């Protein structure tokens, strides 16, 4: 994957979370490795919205058994998950 595409995935995931869960555009409020669940950024009702956003924004279909913390619980995990889906 090209570096600029990679960066744009990162940006759009970060911006989505900052805007919809933290209600800010201050980039310093979210680090890529933090657990979204443990920090209370996303809770049980928020995860479906995140899944729908990823499906729509990146044109991928997320299976039920892919909705696990390893794929979705941090910005880093989400980026590598999207990257993996795209290369399949």
């Amino acid at each position, binding site marked *: 994957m090209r570096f600029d595409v990679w960066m744009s995935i990162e940006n759009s995931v970060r911006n989505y979370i900052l*805007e919809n*869960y*933290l*209600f*800010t555009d201050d980039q310093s409020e979210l680090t890529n490795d933090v*657990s979204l*669940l*443990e*920090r*209370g950024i*996303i*809770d*049980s*009702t*928020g*995860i*479906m919205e995140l899944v729908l956003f990823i499906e729509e924004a990146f044109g991928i279909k997320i*299976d*039920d*058994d*892919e*909705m*696990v*913390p390893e794929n*979705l*619980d941090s910005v880093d995990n989400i980026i590598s998950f999207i990257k993996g889906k795209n290369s399949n």
Partner: protein
Amino acid sequence: MAHLPPIIHRLLGDSLLISAQKNPSKVVVTTNDVAYTYQELLNYSAALANALQQRGLQRGGRVAIYMDNSWPALFSLYGVLLAGGVFVMINPQTKADKLAYILNDSDAHCLLTDIQLENNFYPVLDKLQQLRHVIYAGKEKEFLVSETLIEHFDKVLDKVSPDVFIKNRSVANDLAALIYTSGSTGSPKGVMHTHLSMLFALNSLIEYLRLSDEERILNVLPLSFDYGLYQLLMTVHLGATLILEKSFAFPALMFKRILEKKVTVFPGVPSLFAMLLSFHERSKQCFPSVTRITNTAAALPADFIPTLKEIFPNALIYKMYGLTECKRVSYLEPELVDIKPTSVGEAIPGTEVFLLSPEGKPVTSGDVGILYVRGPHVMLGYWKQKELSEHMLKDDVYPNQKILCTHDWFKMDNDGLLYFVGRSDDIIKTRGEKVSPIEVEHVIYGIEGVNEVAVIGVPDAIFGQFIKAFVSLKAKSSLDDKKIKKICVAKLENYMVPKEVIVMNSLPKTANGKIDKKQLS
């Protein structure tokens, strides 16, 4: 063989002593795919109990447990009980200011927590009058020496032995827990429950849910919520097994656990069942091992039932109603779920309920009245809140005994079954949690630039209600709905954050100039 004296179930912690004696090698909990036995739970709890006593915990002293659903949270709870203390569970979503309020209000002497909550607990330590000790789980870290001693669980437990028997002189009328709940005044209040009231409630729930020691109970609800807490208490009391997850945020993980662990009891709230139904629509789910599903916190929509029966083909479905002040009020026999689809059933075993008019007169069946609850499960009152306690606890027919006035409106049919009509105060119930509009309004009023605010609950099929805030701004303020939400997220638990914030020029007023919430929707 040494003679073991029989242990009698008098205190909440006795459940653990008895179950561990009966079946020490049985698994009490699996969490994060790790299994722990009853003997391990007893060893860790007893060691912690010793450590707490060494740190000055006296009989009846309060210990706050501010943690995610985790193994340390479990042995913390039983550790406090074995030491003769009173546990205070605090939702891990609680932010710094409210955490400080609860720690001060309860006069907690010790805080048991997780390092990942450091951003909330560390900054408030110097504001706490009574707190002397913090013991934390998770990654070890160096802290500056201060008046409060901050130690890691591993270091604390290494130095004590679980074998030294702890003399616990508590009696059943002593407090076992303070359970904090939102109040109409805006500040949370601690519901006082004794060993007696909690053990009574526990046995009543076990009876009507028809549970045995073979159950594998799934708990994805926070242990700070009494519904989640009682899943643990019931498990240990029965000698059964708990499947503990942090939340239901990752449905696939939850489904995997149900299948792998052959879960038999599935406690949920309407938002959890709604999520399950939407998954079932994407791809069919079926969990034949589950024999009981339970719902409380908000009404389970009747049209969920047919699909729930598809997902859980072998399960009895229990609709229930309760409030922290007596743990649970009523349940509907599962055989009636289709016959009485809107009822929340009858009083739980060993208790009674009745309806009175606002003047205190009996109400004929079919008419609306205020629901009263009578039984040993009723709380002692609110911690240090005499007036509020008197508002909820009324005189019984026998002297010096109290009954609980729920202040909720109900109807009762000819079969004695209850139907919820509405609340008589303006507390919002969303996602199963009680939210005081005043508490949310306080936070929004604290924002620079806000002139007026009114917070209301708007009816919602899944959440029960969702929170909506109406705000007017001071001249030249550049605030908008997003900035207001941002501050709410930083100060309030997630479920308290308004879903919608509407900025208006001014808020509607009554003739007396008070904000008229009736005109807002």
